[in-house]
């Protein structure tokens, strides 16, 4: 048997279970229905049958008893009729209740003579009746001793086959009423006053061959005449004869018929002696049989010493009770057998059914089992299970559809895998997949005792290339480069990191040579229409980090030379690690620095060239870290700009400025406009224009007290956007200065399109002006130009009086620099600003 069949959760098991349960339920229901029906029916039939037997037996018995009764009654009738009451009365044998008197001798003699004749006549007639009565063994007439002392009647008994012979008549006066057994035949009918069946009793007159008194039943009739008991007349039947037919009555197997007399004494019972009290039945007989009911044709059952018996009885007209009884077990045997057959058949059918169902269902369910198995294998990632069932039934459809679904899923998963692990364009492993591959490769190399290096390759100028040649061409280039990289390091050691970035892991040995070969090859890629490539190298001997970090560091190294439009490769070194460390430190500590006030806002005064008085202050941040000490803005501002966190700092500075202005105004101090520097990323981080307006307005500070400084490079980075922002500031009433004018590649076009309030010349102009006339010319001309464009001018980095004088001379409106003051806390400037004091020139010593 298939082990799967033992799975009770399987549909097969359920079907078998349901089927068997259904059959079992039906069969049990039918069984009980049949059981009760048949039981009721059987009981009814048993009662009917037993009643029938009883009735039949009783009928036979009754007929026989009646024949005896008829004989005796005829004789009795004759005894009455043939007796002259006149003679009796005349001889004072009767009627003495009217005239009690002693009988005379003559009367006695006459009476006796009369009675002798009377008895003799009667005997003859009775004898002929008795002859015709089957089974009779004796007949008698016993004269009441009160009628006559000497005439006792007659007694005739059969001896052998010779017929009846005369015996000495019984003198009733000698009978002892206490000797029930022997005298009941005489006294009982008299007591009852009417014809009676007597017996069973034993009579000394009737013995068997062994001389044993035999059991008799007698029908005895009292004879009355003139209201007087004349005697009793009767016929004796041996019990054996009486019940001869009863012996042959067989009910079921061991059932029998028995006969009890009116008082319940046994006349015949297979288990009890005649004349005894059937003890076992006694209570029962008293309760049931001897009650007034003459027959029991209902279902009567009783406990017969442990066996239940069923009984039917009837009372014969003789008063005798005919009882037919049989064990209930025998009565029920046939249908019990029937039911055991049914049970056996049921069990067999059920077993057959179970097997058949199992086989059939197994057959039907096999394809389903196959599909189930296939699905289990599928779940385990195995797509190969064979599914061959191809019938047109539901399971066939299911199988085919499952097959198809599985195949599709297989394809989809394979595709997904490909997508997940490889780059769609170049077919190289993608970054995530690469990390796994690289880790394996690294381990492999390490296991071989070799060092691994991580390479990060970055095509330079891909964006422009795409712009110039189109994406198709760019893609083609990428594919070719990818193929070259793969060719150099092997498929499982490379990846397309993203865009135009690739990574590879390789042995540290001879890595430089391989990179050079690669760069050389790449320069010839796409028929020479290629791009230079920066390669960063991170050897794991610097610090053994996981491949993703290694990759990042290699990238860092590659990026280190950003901006150079040429191929080359760069090793990651310890300084880079510091930079990374520094950057992480600044970024990680910014929030705390702002909260703790480690970053402070210093102010550098801007002095009017004309008056030498402070006309503005530029807010600058100073970070004095409790751990690292003074951090240069040149150190942390680029980091914050790169990480786009600069807005936090700028807004912080802005808030401090606003506070300061408010405080000054609140104190009634004169103050000057404060300028703040914005970074490009401030514009991306939020709507900085609106943000500043809100904070300024909320603080109730006049907008013209705040000046916005934007570097030339910021404006250049996204011209249209910045133009819009600058105009928004100006429209709101903020002054906007262009910072570091002339430090980058800015074009004068900017000035043509965007209106600034002031140009702030980069300090390099002034430095160069010290050295060359050209620079001085340019500075002068720029000042003139600005003036003509309606913009004020400011030059920063003023360190010497010469420079200050020069600027004044060329008409540069404002100056800023150490000549006047380095950035300081506002408190140090407060007084000068309040009282509009000239700034003293500070000598650089």
């Amino acid at each position: 048997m298939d082990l799967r069949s033992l799975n009770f959760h399987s549909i097969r098991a359920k079907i078998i279970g349901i089927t068997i349960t259904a059959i079992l339920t039906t069969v049990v229901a039918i069984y009980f229905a049949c059981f009760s029906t048949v039981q009721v029916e059987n009981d009814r039939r048993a009662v009917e049958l037993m009643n029938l037997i009883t009735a039949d037996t009783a009928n036979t018995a009754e007929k026989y008893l009646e024949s005896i009764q008829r004989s005796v009654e005829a004789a009795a009738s004759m005894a009455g009729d043939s007796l002259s009451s006149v003679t009796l009365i005349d001889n004072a044998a009767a009627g003495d209740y009217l005239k009690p008197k002693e009988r005379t001798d003559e009367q006695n003699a006459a009476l006796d003579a009369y009675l002798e004749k009377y008895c003799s006549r009667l005997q003859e007639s009775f004898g002929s009746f008795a002859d015709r009565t089957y089974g009779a063994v004796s007949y008698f007439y016993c004269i009441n001793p009160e009628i006559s002392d000497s005439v006792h009647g007659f007694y005739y008994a059969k001896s052998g086959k010779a017929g009846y012979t005369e015996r000495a008549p019984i003198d009733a006066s000698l009978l002892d009423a206490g000797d029930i057994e022997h005298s009941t035949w005489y006294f009982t009918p008299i007591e009852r006053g009417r014809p009676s069946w007597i017996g069973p009793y034993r009579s000394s007159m009737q013995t068997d061959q062994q001389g044993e008194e035999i059991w008799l039943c007698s029908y005895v009739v009292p004879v009355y005449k003139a209201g007087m008991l004349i005697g009793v007349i009767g016929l004796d039947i041996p019990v054996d004869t009486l019940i001869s037919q009863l012996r042959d009555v067989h009910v079921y197997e061991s059932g029998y018929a028995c006969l009890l007399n009116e008082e319940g004494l046994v006349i015949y019972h297979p288990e009890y002696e005649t004349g005894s009290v059937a003890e076992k039945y006694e209570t029962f007989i008293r309760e049931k049989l001897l009650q007034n009911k003459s027959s029991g044709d209902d279902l009567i059952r009783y406990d017969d010493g442990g066996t239940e018996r069923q009984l039917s009885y009837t009372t014969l007209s003789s008063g005798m009770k005919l009882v037919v009884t049989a064990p209930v077990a025998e009565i029920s045997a046939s249908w019990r057998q029937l039911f055991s057959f049914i049970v056996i058949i049921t069990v067999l059918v059920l077993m057959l059914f179970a097997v058949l169902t199992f086989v059939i269902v197994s057959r039907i369910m096999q394809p389903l089992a196959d599909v189930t198995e296939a699905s289990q294998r599928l779940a385990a990632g195995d797509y190969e299970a064979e599914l061959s069932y191809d019938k047109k039934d539901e399971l066939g459809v299911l199988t085919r559809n499952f097959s198809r679904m599985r195949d599709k899923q297989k394809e989809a998963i394979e595709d997904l895998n490909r997508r997940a692990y490889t780059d769609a364009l170049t077919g190289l492993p993608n970054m995530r997949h690469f990390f796994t591959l690289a880790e394996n490769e690294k381990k492999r190399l390490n296991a071989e005792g070799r060092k691994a290096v991580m390479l990060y390759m970055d095509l330079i100028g891909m964006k422009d290339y795409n712009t110039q040649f189109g994406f198709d061409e760019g893609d083609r280039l990428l594919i070719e480069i990818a193929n070259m990289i793969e060719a150099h390091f092997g498929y499982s050691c490379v990846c397309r990191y993203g865009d135009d970035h690739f990574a590879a892991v390789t042995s540290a040995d001879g890595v430089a040579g391989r990179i050079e070969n690669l760069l050389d090859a790449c320069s010839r890629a796409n028929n020479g229409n290629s791009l230079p490539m920066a390669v960063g190298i991170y050897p794991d001997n610097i610090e053994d980090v996981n491949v993703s970090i290694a990759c990042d560091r290699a990238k860092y190294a590659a990026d280190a030379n950003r901006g150079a439009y040429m191929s080359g490769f760069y090793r990651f070194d310890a300084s880079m690690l510091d930079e990374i460390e520094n950057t992480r430190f600044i970024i990680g500590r910014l929030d705390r620095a702002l909260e703790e006030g480690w970053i402070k806002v210093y102010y550098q005064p801007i002095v009017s060239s004309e008056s030498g008085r402070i006309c503005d202050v530029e807010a600058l941040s100073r970070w004095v870290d409790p751990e690292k000490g003074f951090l240069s803005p040149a150190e942390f501002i680029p980091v914050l700009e790169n990480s786009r966190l600069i807005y936090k700092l700028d807004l912080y500075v802005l808030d401090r400025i606003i506070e300061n202005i408010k405080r000054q105004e609140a104190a009634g101090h004169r103050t000057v406009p404060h300028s703040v520097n914005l970074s490009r990323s401030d514009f991306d981080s939020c709507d900085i224009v609106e943000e500043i307006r809100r904070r300024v307005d909320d603080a109730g500070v006049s907008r013209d007290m705040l000046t916005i400084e934007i570097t030339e490079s910021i404006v250049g980075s996204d011209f249209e956007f910045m133009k819009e922002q600058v105009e928004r500031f100006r429209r709101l009433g903020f002054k906007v200065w262009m910072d570091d004018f002339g430090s980058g590649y800015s074009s004068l076009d900017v000035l043509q399109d965007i209106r600034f309030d002031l140009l702030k010349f980069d300090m390099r102009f002034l430095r160069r002006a010290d050295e060359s006339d050209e620079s001085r010319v340019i500075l002068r001309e720029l000042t003139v130009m600005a003036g003509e464009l309606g913009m004020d001018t400011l030059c920063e980095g003023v360190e010497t009086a010469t420079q200050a004088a020069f600027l004044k001379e060329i008409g540069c409106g404002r100056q800023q620099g150490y000549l006047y003051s380095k950035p300081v806390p506002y408190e140090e400037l407060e007084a000068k600003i309040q009282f509009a004091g000239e700034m003293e020139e500070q000598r650089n010593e």
Partner: protein
Amino acid sequence: MLSTKIRTGRILCLLLISALVSVSFAACSGQGNSAGGKGGETANAGSASASTDDYIVSVWDEPSTVDFQCTTLYYNTAYCVFDRLVRMESGHNDLAVIRPSLADSWEISDDGREYTFHLREGVRFSNGSELTSSDVLYTITRLLTHPESSNRDIAECILGAEELENGKSGTASGSGTANTGTLKGFKIIDDLDFTITLDEPYEAFLAALSMPGASILDEETTEAAGDDFGKDAESTIGTGPFILKSWEKGKGMLFEANPECWAGAPASAGLDVRFVQDSEEVRKLFDDGKLDIMDLSDIDSASEYYIHGDIYKDRLYSAPQVGINYIALNESKKPLDDVRVRKALQLALDRTMLLSSIYGGRGQVENGIYPHGLYGFDPDLEAIPYDIKEAASLLSQAGYADGFELDFSVRTSSTRSEMDMVRMIADMWSEIGVKTNIHVLEDDEFMELRKKGELACYQATWIADYNDPDNFVYTFFGNKANTLDRSLCYTDEDVMKRVRRARTIQDPEKRIEEYRELERIIVQEDCAWVPLLSRTRYYVVSERLEGFHVAWTGRYFINYRDMSVSSTK
């Protein structure tokens, strides 16, 4: 291969299922059968019990009619179905007394001629119609005018009865028409009250009104039934405790309790009366417990079996029968016209022997007309001796020394005891040379001959209808018609006149004295009738019967209303 297997599997399934289904059907149908069978049985049993299981079962002689105006027999039905204005009940000292029945009360005028009756209110016949004075008038008119009436003497004493009888006072037809104008002595006061005026005072009038012949009939029903009245159950409508529901000729009658009976519903549900002739069959019925009351007179010598011994002693009832066995001698037949012959016949009978040998001495030897137990019975009446010598001598004097032949008529319905008695009488008379020819006649023929005064000699019993000597002496010697009716053909007009006059004597003592004198004259001087004996009656009842008691007459059927059968036995 697989599909084949499945198919065979399916077929197998179908076979099994169909097998199971058929088994279950078989089971169901089996159950259905048995249930149906049982239902049938129960239904039968139910209907059986609904009919007569709780009825009292009796054996009666089948009445030829239940119109009691026209019969003096079969009184059972009269007492079950009908009521009379008054009834008689055993009182103190074994004297029966008059009690109200349909008449709630009455007044008798001082001159003893005017009886004013007040009917009980709200009495209804079993057909629902109310009893009124006019029903009573109708009843009495019919009693007097019905050609078959055999109880006229009850009402003949009423003023104007004779004229009515003779058709002088109206156009009364055979079936009798109620015409208030025709019976002078009957005055309706209102629905419930009426006055009856008698010709002359009649002391036994109330007693006579208690007779079955005076049963009050429903005018409407009786009139509608016409000549069929008394012949079927439908027209037998009375006010009594039972309603005759069915009368199956030759088989029996069913009486249903009348729940609306004015005197209250009877104790039993009804009576199941069987007409059984054969005494053996009666006995068997009783022995089988299928008969509730057995009159031992019905079973002849087998009655000894119930009287002796102790089996029936608790269920055996006995009572002296207030009735007399007598021999009627027809004075119009020779040689019975000779008083010496009649005297000889009286003396030749050993009546003690008759009582002893036929009835085992259970009864009394009677010497007059009024039996033991009857109001007016004369304990001092001289006994008629048993004297053959004197008898023989008387016969010789009369010129019949060698005897003569005498026709002795016997009804076929006579009991064995009666037959035995007749035989024994014949034996006794043979002692003085009288040769008795016993003629057994059919009842109807017997009655016909008797009424014509044709029977020379017969033996019969007269049981008291009411407790008054009048009921006896008037019946037999009240007038010519009565003696003729009894085939007595008594001749002494003077005596008969005195019998009639005795009725009017208001002083009870004097009246009884006169009756006793008349009795002596008739029996001892005129030897007009041969008194024999009065019997003790015996009844055995079933174990289930309750409330049985014997009435003052020694009969029981007056008391059916008090009896019932207990359902438990």
